[in-house]
C-alpha cells in the first residue's frame, strides 16, 4: 500500500487511535491480572510492540495531518463530556514513553521472569502488571484534555509508581515508598483543589475552553490564579522539583533498576508536562511570565543543589538519582525563556520554536539517557554485588560494553556534542542570550560543569585505573547490555537529527495563550 494512502487511513481513524493508546495498556493489565502466573509477563511483552506501533501511528497522523488529533468520548462534547487530544508535544511524549517502556521491558525480563515450574511469584506478578499500569497512567496524562480526567490520570500514576519503589520488600524501601506516597498524595490534593476552583470560576474543566474563557475579554477570576498556583505546587511535589524533591533519592535507593528507570525517565515527567500545560495552555501570557521566574529559580537551585549532592554520593545509583534532580531543573528553565517579553516581542520568535525544541529535546534525551544509566548501574551492581563508586576502578575492562553505554548516556547529560543533551542545552543557552537573560546562561553552564565533574568521578577511575579490575561475581547478559546501549545511543543520536524535524512539537501549540495574536 502507498504510504500516503496508509497515512490517510490513519487520519480517518484519528480520534480512535487515542482511545486505543489509552485502552490497550488498561486491557492488557486486566488480562495479565486475571490470568496471572507466567501469563503476566507474556502479555506485557506482547503489549510492548503494539503500544510502540500505536504511538508511532499517532505521531505520524499528527505530523501528516499537520493538526492535533481529537476525540469527544461517548460523543459528549465538553464541557458536559470529556475529550482526549494529542498535539505534537503529546505525540512526542507518547512516543518517548513507548520507547522507554520497550527498552525497560526487554531489560527487566531477566530480573522478573517467573521461575520455571513456579505458579506465580510476587515480584514477577507485581512488576509486569505495574509496568502496564504505569503505561496506562502516562498515556492518560499525555492525552487528557480535562482537568478532572487528568486528576484521575495522576491517581493512576501514583498507585502504579509507588509499589514499584518497594518491589524489593525490605523495610527501608517500604519507608521510602511511604514517603513518596505522602508527597504524591499531598500533590494530588492540591491539584484537585485547583481543578475544583477552575470549575467553580468558569463552569468547565476542558483545557481548551478554559483557555478561551481566560484569554477572553473578561477580567481574570482571582480564583484562577490561586487554582493555578495550588496545582503547580502539587505537581512540583510529584515532579521532585527542589525543594520538594525529598522523596526521590530514597525512593531510588532500594528500587530495582528497571523501576528506577521508569520513575526517573517517565513518571516525574508526567507531572512536569501538566505544569507546562497549565501555564502555557490555560493561563494568560502575562501571568505565565511572572510564574516563570519563580519556577526557573527553583529549577536553577535544583541544577546546582542536585549537582553538588551528586558529587558527594558514595553509591553509583544515588549519584544517578541526584543527577535526576539536577536534570529536571533544566526543564523548568523553559518557562522564562518561552514566556519572556523579549522572546514574545520578536515576531520570528513567536511561539519560540527554539526554546520549545530545546526543552523537549532535554526531556526526551534525559528520559532515554537516564533510563540507560539506571539500567547500566543495575547491571554493574548485579555483576559486582555492589555499586560503591570508590570500588569501581578498572570496571571498564571488566564490563566494557556496559560502561560504554553508561558513558555515552553521560555525554548527553553533560551536554557534550554530538548528543541530544548538547542540542537541548545549546538551544536553551542561545534563547537565554537572545532574550537577554544571561543569568540563566550561567546556571546552564555551571550545571554542565557539575555534571561533568560527577560523571568524571565515576568514569575516570573506571576507564583509567591501573589496579586489576574488580572480578564480576556474576556474568552480565549480553542482550541486556545491547538494550542499554540502544537507549543510550538514541539519546545521543537525537542531537544529530536536523532541527527542522522537530516541527512536530509546534503542531497544535499555537492554540496556547502564548501563541494567541
Amino acid at each position, binding site marked *: 500500500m502507498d504510504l500516503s494512502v496508509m497515512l490517510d487511513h490513519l487520519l480517518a481513524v484519528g480520534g*480512535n487511535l487515542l*482511545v486505543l493508546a489509552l*485502552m490497550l495498556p*488498561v*486491557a492488557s*493489565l*486486566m488480562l495479565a*491480572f*486475571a*490470568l*496471572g502466573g507466567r501469563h503476566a509477563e507474556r502479555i506485557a511483552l506482547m503489549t510492548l510492540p503494539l503500544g510502540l506501533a500505536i504511538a508511532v501511528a499517532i505521531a505520524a497522523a499528527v505530523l501528516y495531518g499537520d493538526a492535533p488529533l481529537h*476525540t*469527544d*468520548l*461517548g*460523543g*459528549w462534547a465538553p*464541557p*458536559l*463530556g*470529556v475529550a482526549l487530544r494529542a498535539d505534537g508535544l503529546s505525540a512526542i511524549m507518547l512516543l518517548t514513553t513507548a520507547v522507554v517502556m520497550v527498552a525497560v521491558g526487554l531489560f527487566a525480563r531477566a530480573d522478573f521472569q517467573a521461575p520455571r515450574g513456579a*505458579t*506465580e*511469584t*510476587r515480584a514477577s*506478578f*507485581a512488576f509486569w*502488571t*505495574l509496568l502496564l*499500569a504505569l503505561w*496506562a497512567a502516562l498515556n*492518560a496524562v499525555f492525552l487528557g484534555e480535562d482537568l*478532572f*480526567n487528568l486528576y*484521575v*490520570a495522576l*491517581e*493512576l500514576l501514583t*498507585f*502504579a509508581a*509507588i*509499589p514499584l519503589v*518497594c*518491589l524489593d*520488600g525490605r523495610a527501608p524501601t*517500604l519507608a521510602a515508598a511511604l514517603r513518596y506516597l505522602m508527597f504524591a498524595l499531598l500533590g494530588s490534593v492540591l491539584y484537585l*483543589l485547583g481543578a475544583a*476552583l477552575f470549575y*467553580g*470560576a*468558569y*463552569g*468547565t474543566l476542558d483545557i481548551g475552553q478554559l483557555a478561551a474563557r481566560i484569554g477572553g475579554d473578561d477580567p481574570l*477570576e*482571582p*480564583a484562577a490564579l*490561586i487554582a493555578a498556583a495550588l496545582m503547580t505546587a502539587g505537581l512540583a511535589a510529584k515532579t521532585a522539583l527542589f525543594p520538594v524533591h525529598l522523596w526521590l533519592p530514597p525512593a531510588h535507593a532500594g528500587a530495582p533498576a528497571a523501576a528506577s528507570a521508569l520513575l526517573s525517565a517517565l513518571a516525574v515527567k508526567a507531572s512536569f508536562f501538566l505544569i507546562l500545560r497549565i501555564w502555557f495552555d490555560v493561563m494568560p501570557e502575562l501571568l505565565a511570565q511572572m510564574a516563570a521566574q519563580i519556577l526557573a529559580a527553583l529549577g536553577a537551585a535544583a541544577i546546582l543543589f542536585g549537582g553538588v549532592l551528586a558529587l558527594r554520593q558514595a553509591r553509583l545509583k544515588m549519584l544517578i538519582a541526584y543527577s535526576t534532580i539536577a536534570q529536571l531543573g533544566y526543564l523548568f528553565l523553559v518557562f522564562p525563556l518561552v514566556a519572556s517579553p523579549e522572546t514574545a516581542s520578536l515576531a520570528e520568535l513567536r511561539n519560540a520554536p527554539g526554546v520549545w525544541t530545546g526543552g523537549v529535546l532535554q526531556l526526551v534525551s534525559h528520559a532515554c539517557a537516564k533510563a540507560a544509566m539506571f539500567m547500566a548501574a543495575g547491571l554493574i551492581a548485579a555483576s559486582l554485588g555492589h555499586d560503591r563508586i570508590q570500588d569501581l576502578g578498572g570496571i571498564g575492562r571488566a564490563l566494557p560494553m556496559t560502561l560504554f553505554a553508561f558513558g555515552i548516556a553521560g555525554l548527553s547529560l553533560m551536554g557534550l556534542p554530538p548528543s541530544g543533551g548538547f542540542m537541548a542545552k545549546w538551544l536553551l543557552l542561545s534563547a537565554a542570550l537572545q532574550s537577554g537573560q544571561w543569568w540563566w546562561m550561567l546556571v546552564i553552564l555551571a550545571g554542565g560543569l557539575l555534571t561533568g565533574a560527577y560523571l568524571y568521578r565515576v568514569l575516570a577511575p573506571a576507564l583509567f585505573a591501573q589496579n586489576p579490575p574488580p572480578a564480576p561475581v556474576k556474568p552480565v547478559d549480553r542482550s541486556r547490555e545491547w538494550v542499554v546501549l540502544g537507549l543510550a545511543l538514541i539519546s545521543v543520536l537525537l542531537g544529530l537529527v536536523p532541527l527542522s524535524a522537530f516541527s512536530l512539537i509546534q503542531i497544535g501549540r499555537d492554540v496556547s495563550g502564548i501563541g494567541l495574536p
Partner: protein
Amino acid sequence: MSAALIVDLGLALSILGLGVWTVAARSHNGAVVGYIAYGLLVALVWVRLAAVDVALTEAAIGSGLTGLLLLGVATRLPRSARQPSPTAGRWTRLLAGVLSATVAGGLAAVVLLLPDPAPTLAPSVAANLPATGLGNPVTGVLIAFRAIDTLLESVVLVFAIIGVWSLAPKDGWGERPGWLRPAPLGSALTLLAQLLPPIGILVGIHLFWTGANAPGGAFQGGAVLAAMWVLAMIAGLTRPPAVSRRRLRLVLVIGPALFLAVGVAGIWLAGDFLAYPVAYAKPLILVIEAALTLSIAAALGLLLAGPPEAPSAAERQP
C-alpha cells in the same frame, strides 16, 4: 431563627469540635473514633446541601471503610507506639497550625470570591439525561457523560489491590490475606455478623439498583456489600480467599472489563468509544453498574483484608 439554621449551626459547631478532638486526642484509638464521627457528621452536611449521593459515599467510604482501616492500624501498632509521641517542638506545631490556618483562610476567601451565581452544568446535564434513559443526574454524569473517569477510577482499584498484595511477606504469595484477625467465636460480634448481612446485602443491592433513578449507585452499593463481607470476616464466619484464586481475580476485573468492552462496542454501535446506542442505553448501563458493584465490593473488602500472609502454625492444623 429558623429550625434549619439551628440544625446547621449545631452541625457546624459539632464538626469543628470533633476536628479539634481528633487532632488533640491522646490515643490513636480516640483520634480514629473522633474521625469516624466527624465523617458521619460531614455526611449529614452533604444531606443538608441536597447532595445525597455524596453523603452516601462519604458515610460508606470516607467514614466507614476508611475508619475501619484506621482502627485496624491503631490496634495493630505495637504498644510502645500507641501514644502519639510529641516529637515536634512547640514552635514547629505552632508553625504548622499557622500554615494550616492560612491555607484554610485563603481557601475560604477564594470560595467567597467565586462568581455568584456559580456557573453550572446542571441544566446541560438535565437536558441530555433522557438520552441515557436514567433518572439520576449523578449516575448520568458518572456512567455516561464522564464515563471515562468512572472507568479509570474502577481501574485504580485494581492498581491498589496490586499495590497492597505486593507488600506480601516472602512466603506469603498466593495465600489468603491475613490482616483481619477474627474475634473469638461466640461473641456478640458473631451474632451481629449473622443477623446483619442478610439485611445489608439487600441494602447494597437496592442502592445499586435504585442508583439509576435515585441517589445510590455502584460505589455506594459496593461499599455496603464490602462492609457486610468484612463484618463476616472479622467475626470469623468466613475467611478471605487466597489471592491466587483465578475466580477471585476475575471478580475483581469483571466490572472495569465489561465497562471497557461495552465502551469499545460503542465505537461500532453508537459511533463513539463509551457511547451507548440510545435504544439499549439503560439496560447496558444497568449491566455495567451491576458488574462494577461486584468488583468494587470485592476490591474494597480485599483492600481491608490486607496483603496475603503465610498461614500460621495454628491455622495449618484445623
